[in-house]
């Protein structure tokens, strides 16, 4: 295949398979809905989380409006917790953009940790809707653009369903007990991610930001978090990425040891150093600041930052978190243009 005529989808897939590409793609594994995209359809942000067509339309719009090289769903981080039985708040009363959060925890104290994973997980909450969204996206733009989906990592999901203070203290005091919970959640996440893969997702991003070195020591990451991430990546069938934000320089090597095909880090990572540590071949995605650069930076700052990411050795230009919806269109265009014209 001539590499000068790749579609965005081919470019992303060839990146994962290690085949030759013309340039690093500019895409993401996390939410990429924009206010511009919502405006195009007249959708309210609070409404798109629970309607398959609205979510698919919004997710596809970043490609259609700006040429972003993927469409990724969902936009929020509550799908898995909801399927496990948590109630969510979508803030429908708020005009501004607020992401859904969990209203009530399943586990408040140590004694409540023996939960059962529902056997019909794939049919619960918004999991069936997410499959529908992925299918709609495949039909709409799936020929040209890679479709991604994300799930939380086991520890981050534990933080959604369980009182966070308790989880953090027990991860220190009773790691065995926490480990048992993480093992169950890993199984649940394999089921949900498997549904997304079966619906046609080209790649899955596992977001384990709760285990950043801003919160947990690299030692605890290795002993308590890594085994269950490894479990998930051995259970996934397609392409995949492990994302952790915040401080990650000391755990980047462990992140790769999880078996993830690619790792994703945010702007707090010294990416040139990480590249040195993990070698030339490993897939490293990152690491621009999606708010302070993409939303509030000037076009020149956007261009400089994207060039900086590429100079520092990223395999794909990719945000440190969800694209923040109020990104100015001219900044989005500047980002795409800079990545497209970059030559190593």
């Amino acid at each position, binding site marked *: 295949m001539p590499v000068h005529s790749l579609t965005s989808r081919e470019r992303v897939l060839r990146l994962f398979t290690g085949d030759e590409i013309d340039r690093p793609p500019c895409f993401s594994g996390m939410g990429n809905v924009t206010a511009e995209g919502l405006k195009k359809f007249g959708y309210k942000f609070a409404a798109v989380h629970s309607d398959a067509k609205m979510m698919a339309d919004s997710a596809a719009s970043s490609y259609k409006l700006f040429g972003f090289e993927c469409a990724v769903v969902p936009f929020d981080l509550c799908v898995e917790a909801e399927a496990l039985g948590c109630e969510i708040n979508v803030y429908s009363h708020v005009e501004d953009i*607020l992401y859904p*959060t969990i209203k009530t925890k399943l586990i408040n104290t140590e004694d409540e940790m023996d939960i059962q994973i529902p056997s019909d997980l794939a049919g619960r909450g918004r999991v069936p809707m997410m499959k529908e969204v992925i299918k709609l996206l495949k039909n709409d733009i799936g020929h040209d653009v890679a479709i991604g989906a994300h799930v939380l990592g086991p520890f981050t999901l534990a933080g959604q369903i369980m009182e966070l203070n308790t989880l953090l203290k027990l991860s220190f005091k009773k790691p065995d007990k926490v480990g048992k919970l993480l093992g169950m959640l890993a199984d649940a996440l394999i089921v949900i991610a498997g549904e997304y893969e079966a619906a046609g997702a080209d790649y899955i991003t596992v977001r384990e930001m709760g285990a950043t070195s801003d919160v*947990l020591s690299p030692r605890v990451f290795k002993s308590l978090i890594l085994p269950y991430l490894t479990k998930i990546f051995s259970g996934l069938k397609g392409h995949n990425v492990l994302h952790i934000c*915040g401080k990650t320089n000391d755990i980047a090597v462990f992140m790769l040891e999880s078996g993830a095909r690619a790792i994703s880090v945010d702007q707090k990572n010294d990416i040139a150093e990480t590249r040195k540590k993990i070698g030339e071949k490993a897939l490293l995605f990152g690491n621009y600041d999606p*708010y302070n650069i993409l939303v509030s930076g000037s076009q020149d700052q956007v261009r400089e930052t994207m060039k900086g990411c590429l100079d520092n050795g990223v395999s794909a230009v990719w945000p440190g978190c*969800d694209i923040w919806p109020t990104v100015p269109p001219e900044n989005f265009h500047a980002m795409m243009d800079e990545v497209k014209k970059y030559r190593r």
Partner: protein
Amino acid sequence: MATEDMKKEILERLKNAVIQYDEDAAKEGADEALREGMDANDAIFNGLVSGMEEVGRLFEAQEYFVPELLMCADALYAGLDILKPHVKQLDLGLRGSVVIGTVEGDVHDIGKNIVKMMFDVAGFQVYDLGKDVPLDKFVEEQMKTHSDLVCLSAMMTTTMVGMKKVIDDLKAKNPDVKIMIGGAPVSQDIAEKWGADGYAPDANNALKDAINMISSLKKLKEEAEEKKA
């Protein structure tokens, strides 16, 4: 009355109880301090808070992480709960009340609670609005309590932008109110641009800032005592 040596020993025990996140030791130390007739303020500042200062250093050196910090905070509160009823009120010339909370859309309150702890230690009247707090509530509560400080916390970029609205509203209604913002996505740049008076990007910095504040209170307190003497 306790001898100087015995006092020193009790302070050391309180300090170590916090550092070693030992709630029982903190309770025992606090009880003993009271039994020996020690000044509760002394036990709090030179025992418990000294311990927390060391915890801040350990956190900065990346020997301690958030789980340890939470356990140390538990130990501090275990001692503080016993000592606080015995604190003699000192007029520091500060009104000392603060409204604190995590902004709507954000359900993370660990950083907020660490900062709150230091205000508790300092004897501030703390109006804790909790997490996921509707933006108008901060303004309402400040007006109602006439607090001189409002602390806003957000852990996610996705909720941080709500803080700007609160700052604008607060400054419009009461230009004298001091506003501190905190959380992972917050930067000096954002604090300046939005007109906040202070900021702390993470629990460590929040802790450091709070300790700095407590240390200056400690100085004020010592000066006040010198004047009395």
